């Protein structure tokens, strides 16, 4: 029996740190807008990652100090950034050649739902009347070599986000490699969703009870 209490597990910083530790030195990395951006703060010292932002910059640096923002130097979230020494700018067709042509090593994205076979839904809830907006998400999941998803394990109202089959419109089919949630790290394998690590206080039975998809120990 699973106890009827909610376990918070890792906080967002700890989740981001888990992701950062898994990205090898020398990787070209694209971080999605929002929580995925936090990963950059936790890259271990001595590891050099080069950040790609799909609006046309390889070698993205941190946010500029206040007053030094340049409206023509922004990231995919349209926020001011900097360019590191050794950075380069390019047009959109080149930028998505890097993505679709499998030149980018790792992409970290958020999710609305992930299915046990690695299907990802993260661009639309499919509500009637909602204005569709996709941006570069479908290109990233189709082209980047390794796709990491960082997300809360369940929605704010307690519904499963890790599901047997996505009910929201897909971003890509069988594209996710690894999931980092507040409760666990999970790999999408040919056999199914394999538990790699659990947050302190989380048992396999608890994790399975709050996950719609079937887990493998």
């Amino acid at each position, binding site marked *: 029996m699973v106890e009827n209490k909610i376990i918070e597990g890792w906080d967002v910083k700890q989740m981001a740190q888990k992701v950062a530790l898994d990205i090898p030195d020398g990787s070209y990395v694209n971080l999605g807008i929002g929580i995925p951006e936090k990963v950059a703060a936790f890259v271990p010292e001595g590891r050099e990652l080069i950040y790609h932002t799909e609006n046309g910059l390889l070698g993205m640096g941190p946010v500029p100090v206040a007053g030094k923002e340049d409206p*023509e130097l*922004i990231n995919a979230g349209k926020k001011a950034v900097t360019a590191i020494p050794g950075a380069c700018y390019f*047009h*959109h*067709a080149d930028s998505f050649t890097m993505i679709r042509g499998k030149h980018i090593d790792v992409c970290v994205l958020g999710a609305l739902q992930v299915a046990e076979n690695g299907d990802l839904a993260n661009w639309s809830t499919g509500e009637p009347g909602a*204005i569709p907006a996709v941006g570069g998400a479908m*290109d990233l999941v*189709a082209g980047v070599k390794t796709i990491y998803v960082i997300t809360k394990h369940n929605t704010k109202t307690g519904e499963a986000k890790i599901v047997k089959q996505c009910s929201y419109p897909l971003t890509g089919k069988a594209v996710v490699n690894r999931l980092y949630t507040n409760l666990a790290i999970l790999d999408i394998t040919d056999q199914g969703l394999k538990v790699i690590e659990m947050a302190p206080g989380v048992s396999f039975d608890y994790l399975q009870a709050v996950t719609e998809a079937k887990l493998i120990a």
Partner: protein
Amino acid sequence: MINKILTSVEEAVHGIFDGATIMISGFGEAGSPIELIHALIDQGAKNLTIVSNNTGSGEVGLAALIAHKRVKKMICSFPRTANSTVFPELYKKGEIELEIVPQGTLAERIRAGGAGIPAFYTPTSVGTPLAEQKESRTFEGVTYVMEHAIKADFALVKALKADRYGNLIYNKTARNFGPIMCTAAKTTIVQTEQTVDLGALDPECVVTPGIFVQRVVQIENPAQESKLVAENRRYPW
């Protein structure tokens, strides 16, 4: 003598006709040719199909063109942006059409249009609602969806420097869609912050070769869209 540099934005947008397809550079405000868009509003062409990544913000630039009911259809990847209200309101009322395209597919469709490639296969969007009703094909065991090129009658593009042959360089991430849009339009119209003498641009570093550009106009200090929006400005003023 070849001299593509014109002296006014009115001349630059001359001849844009009702029903034209127009590509407009920019990713958000970065690279958006705001003075050319305002000149297009003044010029009056309507029933336009606009190809641009976003739909503008506030009531200036692209959002103002939409607010003036000049746009029949938007082809874009992300029509929602901070301070973007004009497009959503018209869309919800059914007064503007939307073709939603993944960002990389949008870029490649434009690139293909400029490169004489009528269609291509891409892995992007396979298995999603955006691939429905589209032809697909399997290469080396992987499924790809066919996408058609986009060509335009006109492109409005923002650059940093131009010479009289139309050679261009851009500023940082304001480059975004500019170079590919220049190649895909019959008439490419560029606003540049600086005009320079022939030879001043290092041939090794020219980003858009002048052959892709028909008209250039200098706008020395272009308006910053986000500042105008913060000041609640509306075009025309």
